[in-house]
């Protein structure tokens, strides 16, 4: 079934990459900012998918890696540490944290795991607000102001690329195979000789790398962070929402979900012909769409038959992921 229609060659995608690299030169800076945010959400969403979709552990607190790294970077950078060193150290600290917390948390099952991680966000928000001397408390940290969308664009493009490359190759690798088998049935996997605990921790820490990179980058870009900005619970659910909307467990899902939400939001606000009450209720409509997706197409929009057909026709069939078939089966398929 994957053979129908020509597959877009790697060369094509290389051209797309070059186009993205050149984009900032030709369009209004606004689109640079727009794309930068898109890359950020794609990065966070796709990495969320590693634990949620591939491993089967929904980490509702995925965003916390973003926040810890953002703060780590801000603290170091504001004290005069260079950009590169701050970035590296911030990510390192986040990964160490992820490693430490992974062992106890990964013993939790399903819903408890999701919620315990979610609680972490709140905990760190509180810590950031309380440890004034360290984090500037609720007044946050202010870095030297600057206008850096172009550099951030390339940084985020790089990270997003890295993320999706990793996410693309995982399902094709032995690592991915191990994750899927753990997802389907942990005990059986253990019985087959897979060191389950080790793989779970690896997936968890791996998924933390990308939001950490993005978090540090974001702190540098916005130059002012307070606990609410990076540890806000309303923001925490955003990447989760995007991925679930687009499709968990699929490679294309998070990308599609992020793009879909950003574009719809853009459209709603910038079209003059829409009546004002639709704009005011845009969150309600998003909420209802989300609920509808949950009820009718829980594997996400990407797995709807017309969508998969379209992708295959356009030659992007291979991006639907090797997990597609087994995913469909295990999630009961669309509608």
């Amino acid at each position: 079934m994957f053979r129908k229609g020509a597959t877009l060659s790697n060369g094509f995608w290389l051209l797309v990459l070059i186009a993205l690299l050149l984009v900032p030169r030709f369009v209004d800076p606004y689109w640079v900012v727009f794309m930068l945010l898109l890359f950020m959400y794609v990065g966070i969403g796709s990495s969320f998918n590693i634990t949620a979709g591939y491993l089967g552990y929904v980490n509702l607190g995925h965003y916390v890696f973003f926040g810890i790294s953002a703060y780590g970077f801000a603290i170091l950078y504001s004290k005069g540490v260079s950009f590169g060193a701050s970035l590296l150290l911030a990510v390192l600290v986040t990964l160490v944290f992820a490693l430490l917390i992974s062992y106890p948390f990964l013993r939790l099952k399903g819903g408890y795991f999701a919620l315990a991680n979610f609680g972490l966000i709140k905990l760190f928000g509180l810590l950031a607000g309380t440890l004034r001397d360290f984090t500037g408390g609720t007044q946050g940290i202010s870095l030297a102001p600057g206008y850096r969308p172009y550099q951030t664009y390339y940084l985020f493009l790089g990270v997003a690329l890295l993320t999706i490359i990793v996410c693309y190759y995982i399902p094709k690798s032995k690592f991915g195979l191990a994750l899927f088998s753990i997802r389907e049935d942990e005990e059986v996997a253990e019985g087959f000789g897979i060191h389950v605990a080790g793989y779970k921790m690896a997936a968890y820490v791996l998924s933390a790398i990308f939001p950490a990179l993005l978090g540090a980058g974001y702190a540098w870009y916005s130059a002012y962070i307070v606990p609410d900005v990076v540890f806000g619970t309303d923001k925490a659910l955003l990447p989760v929402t995007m991925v679930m909307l687009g499709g968990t467990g699929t490679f294309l899902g998070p990308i599609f979900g992020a793009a879909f939400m950003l574009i719809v939001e853009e459209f709603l606000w910038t079209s003059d012909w829409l009546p004002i009450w639709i704009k005011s209720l845009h969150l309600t409509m998003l909420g209802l769409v989300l609920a509808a997706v949950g009820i009718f197409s829980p594997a996400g929009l990407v797995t709807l038959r017309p969508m998969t057909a379209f992708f295959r026709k356009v030659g992007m069939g291979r991006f639907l992921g090797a997990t597609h078939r087994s995913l469909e089966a295990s999630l009961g398929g669309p509608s």
Partner: protein
Amino acid sequence: MGQVLILLQLVLAAVLQGGTYALAAFGLSLIFCIADVLNISHGEFLMLGGLVTYLIFAATGWNPFLILPIVIPLFILVGFAYQKAFIRPILSRPPRQLLFSSIVVTVGIATAIEDTASFIWGPTVKGVSYSMPSFIAYGVVVSSLRLTILLSIIALTVFLHFYLKKTFVGKAIRAILQNREGALVIGINVPRIVTFVFGIAVCLAAMAGVFYVMQFTIGPFIGLPLTIRYIAVVMLGGSGSLIGSLVGGLILGVAETFAGFYLGANWSLTVAFFILVLVLLLKPEGLFKHV
């Protein structure tokens, strides 16, 4: 002697706080245990309960305690409708998919409720200016309002306990919690009981909302942070357990109040969450098993 009085004062506050937590948390815990659904929109029902109370109070000035008899049946129905419309379609799915779906659906509904409430009634906070005189017992100031609320919660808890133990529906619920297939085998109409549980849970949340709006203020966006706190109580105490919710609520209440006093108000919530994480590390399923 002064120290002892202050201690008593704090204990009273802690118990009141904990009781309020426990009430809303128990509903959440029931839903999680009986349907494997993470009801992230739980806090929204609390907000709606408080909102309805505010609206009726603003229009009529009635004693909010007397508004309870209106809130209770209303929200049992709301719970039924909510479950039938949004939850039932996903209940028949395998566990992992159910978890995913329940998160997506309940987050969606929570967002929609918040936004609509803000649109219709405005984003400002609302409160209910109902108060009761307080009295002093043995040098400790007791707030009659909070005491009455606490007594109501205790009465409710006792009622729930006997309901679960003695009535048919209650026993059916416990049977399902203990062994779902077994319950089916002996002829219990599981889907209908599940719907009923949702009615109860949503109603409990709304009642907590009534008590909440009497003590604090409500706004369209308070739902999500509250849901997180109740989730903490549920995880602490163990899902499906009434005692668990009470103990979990109490622990959090005590942690908040005492940490606030001795370490400075800054630390109250932080300590509470630390304790949660600690308990989870030691006992991943929470302190108590289900009823």
